[in-house]
C-alpha cells in the first residue's frame, strides 16, 4: 500500500471535499434539521482519509478485513453520508433520505441502516471504546487492518473517553488511529466557555499516545497528518491527530458560529451557501 495514496492529487481531494460540502448543506436544508457545523469542519479530513487511506470495498461493505471507520461524533452524519456517497457505498439519491422515515441516512450514523457505517453512534464518548474493540479484534485475527476513530473536542468532556484513552495505551494498540476534530464549538457555546480544555496535546501525551497537530483544512498538512497516523514508528501504541478546524468551515455565515452546530439554513442562506461553494451564480 505504501505510496499508493500519492497517486491522488491534492486538488482532487479538495474537489471531493467541495462536492461533499454541497451535499452536506443540501441534506440539512432539505431536512430543515441536522448538524452542518461539525460536518463541515470534519469533511476535509474525511475526504483525505477515504480517498487515500481507507482499505475498504464499497461493493462489499461488510468485507471482514476492511479498515474500520468510527464516527464517534455521530451527529456530524451528513459529512459521513456525503463521503459514503462519493465512495459509492450509497447513492447520491440515498442522501435525500437523511432524517426521513425509513431512510438509510438516519439522523445519526447507524450501522444497522447504512452500508459503510461501522458503528451506531449518536451518544458521545462511545466511539473510541468501540474502536478499541475493533483494534483488539484485528490483533486477535493477526490482521493488519486498522481502526480509525473520529472524535470531537466537546466529546472529550465525556469521562468514558479517558477510560478508553488509558486502556488503549495500556494495551499498546498501534492499529488504533484517532482524529480529533478540534473545531472549538459544542452544542451550547464555544468549548472554552462550556468546559476549558487546557493543553489537549499534553493530555493525550500523558496518557501514552503519539500526538501530532495539524491544520485540518490545509490538505497538504492533512496528508502529512495521515502519514503520521500510518507511520511505522508510531505503531508502538495508539496515535491521535489533533486537527484544528473551523466549525462550519467553508460557508461564511456558519464559520465559528455556534448557532450552526445543529441548525439548518433558511432559503436565502441556502442560496448563499451554493454560491460560496461554486454551485450557483451570484
Amino acid at each position, binding site marked *: 500500500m505504501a505510496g499508493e495514496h500519492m497517486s491522488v492529487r491534492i486538488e482532487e481531494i479538495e474537489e471531493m471535499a467541495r462536492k461533499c460540502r454541497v451535499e452536506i448543506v443540501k441534506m440539512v436544508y432539505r431536512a430543515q434539521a441536522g448538524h452542518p457545523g461539525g460536518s463541515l469542519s470534519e469533511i476535509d479530513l474525511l475526504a483525505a482519509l477515504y480517498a487515500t487511506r481507507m482499505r475498504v470495498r464499497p461493493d462489499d461493505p461488510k468485507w471482514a478485513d476492511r479498515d474500520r471507520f468510527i464516527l464517534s461524533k455521530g451527529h456530524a452524519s451528513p459529512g459521513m453520508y456525503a463521503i459514503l456517497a462519493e465512495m459509492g457505498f450509497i447513492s447520491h439519491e440515498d442522501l435525500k433520505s437523511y432524517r426521513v422515515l425509513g431512510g438509510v441516512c438516519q439522523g445519526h450514523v447507524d*450501522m444497522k441502516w447504512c452500508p459503510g457505517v461501522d458503528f451506531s453512534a449518536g451518544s458521545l464518548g462511545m466511539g473510541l471504546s468501540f474502536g478499541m*474493540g475493533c483494534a*483488539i479484534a484485528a490483533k*486477535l485475527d493477526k490482521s493488519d487492518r486498522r481502526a480509525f476513530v473520529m472524535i470531537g473536542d466537546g466529546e472529550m468532556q465525556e469521562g468514558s473517553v479517558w477510560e*478508553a484513552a488509558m486502556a488503549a495505551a495500556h494495551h499498546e494498540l498501534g492499529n488504533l488511529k484517532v482524529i480529533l476534530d478540534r473545531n472549538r464549538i459544542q452544542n451550547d457555546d464555544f468549548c472554552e466557555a462550556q468546559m476549558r480544555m487546557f493543553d489537549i496535546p499534553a493530555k493525550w501525551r500523558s496518557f501514552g499516545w503519539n500526538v501530532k497537530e495539524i491544520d485540518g483544512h490545509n490538505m497538504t498538512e492533512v496528508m502529512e497528518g495521515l502519514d503520521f497516523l500510518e507511520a511505522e514508528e508510531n505503531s508502538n501504541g495508539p496515535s491521535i491527530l489533533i486537527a484544528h478546524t473551523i466549525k462550519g468551515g467553508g460557508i461564511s455565515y456558519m464559520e465559528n458560529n455556534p448557532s450552526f452546530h445543529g441548525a439548518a439554513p433558511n432559503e436565502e442562506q441556502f442560496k448563499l451557501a451554493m454560491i460560496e461553494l461554486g454551485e450557483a451564480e451570484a
Partner: protein
Amino acid sequence: MTRMAATRDGYGQALLDLADNPKVVVLEADLGKSTKSLHFRKAHPERTVSCGIGEQNMLLVGAGLASAGYIPFASTFAIFTERAFEQMRNGVARPNLPVHLCGSHGGTHTGTDGSSAQSIEDLAVFRTLPNVVVMHPCDDVSTRALTMQLPALGQPSYMRTARNKTPVLYDGRENEIQIGKGIVLQDGHDVGIIACGVLVSEAIKAAEQLASQGISACVVDMHTLKPIDGDLIDKLVAQCGALVTAEDHNIIGGLGGAVAEHLVSNTPAPLERVGVQDRFGESGQSDEMLEVMQISAPYIAAAAQRAINRK
C-alpha cells in the same frame, strides 16, 4: 446432604469450558477474582482484556469485538453494570451485538458489603432493553448450562449471578436447562410459586411449609426473565389459579413485574409479589438480609396464602 455452591462459580467454569471456541474472549474490570472470570484469564491471557476499573469502556470494547465476530463475555459486580447502562443500551443492544454481560454479587444476599454493593434493580433496567436476554439462575449447574448456551444465542444478554453459596438443585440435570424455558421443580395445584436466583431454594422451603398446612404449591425456577416463559405462566394459572413471585430484587420491574405484565395481557389471576419493598439494603449476613427484606421462605408461604385467599 445438599451440595452448596455459588452461581458465580458456575459462570467461571463455563467460561473455561467455552474456551475451545477461539471466538470467545473475556473482558474484565478489575473484578475477575470475584466474578470468577479469573480462571479463563489464567488459562487464556491472550484472549482476556483488562479494562481496568472502567465499565463503560468495557461494554463498548465488547461491542467492537462482537462487531468483528468475537463473542465477548464481560463481567463485573451487578451494581457496576448499571454504570454502563447507556453503553449497553446504545452501543450493544441497539445494534444487537452479542456481548454477554454478567453481573455477579447481585441482590441483598450479597450481604455485609452493604447497600452500595447490593444491586436490586439490575434485572429491571436490563429487561427494558430491546434485544437483550435477561437471566438469573439459581445454582451453579444451571448457571454453567445457561452460560454454555450463550455463544449460540446471537444477541446480547445480561446474567445476574450471586456471591454466596446456595443449595444445588440440578446436579445431573444439566440437559433440562434451556434459555427462555422455566422449570417446574415441584408440581402442585393450589398456588404457583415462581422464583429466580437465590430465592428458588427459599420457594421450595415455602412449599414444604405450605404442604404441612395441606396446601399444594407448584414451584417454578424462572431463570430467564426475558423472554419470559408465558406458556408456563398460562399453565400455572390454569392449574393453580393464584401465583406468587419471589426474587431478591426490587418488587418493581423484575420477575414480579415480568409475570404481572404477562398476566394482565393474557389470563389475569391473583398475584402476590415477594421482593425488596422498594427500599435499599444494609450490611448483614445473607440469611439475615433475607429476613430484613422479608423475602425468606415464611414470607413466601404467607404470600401464597394471601394469593389463595384472593381467588
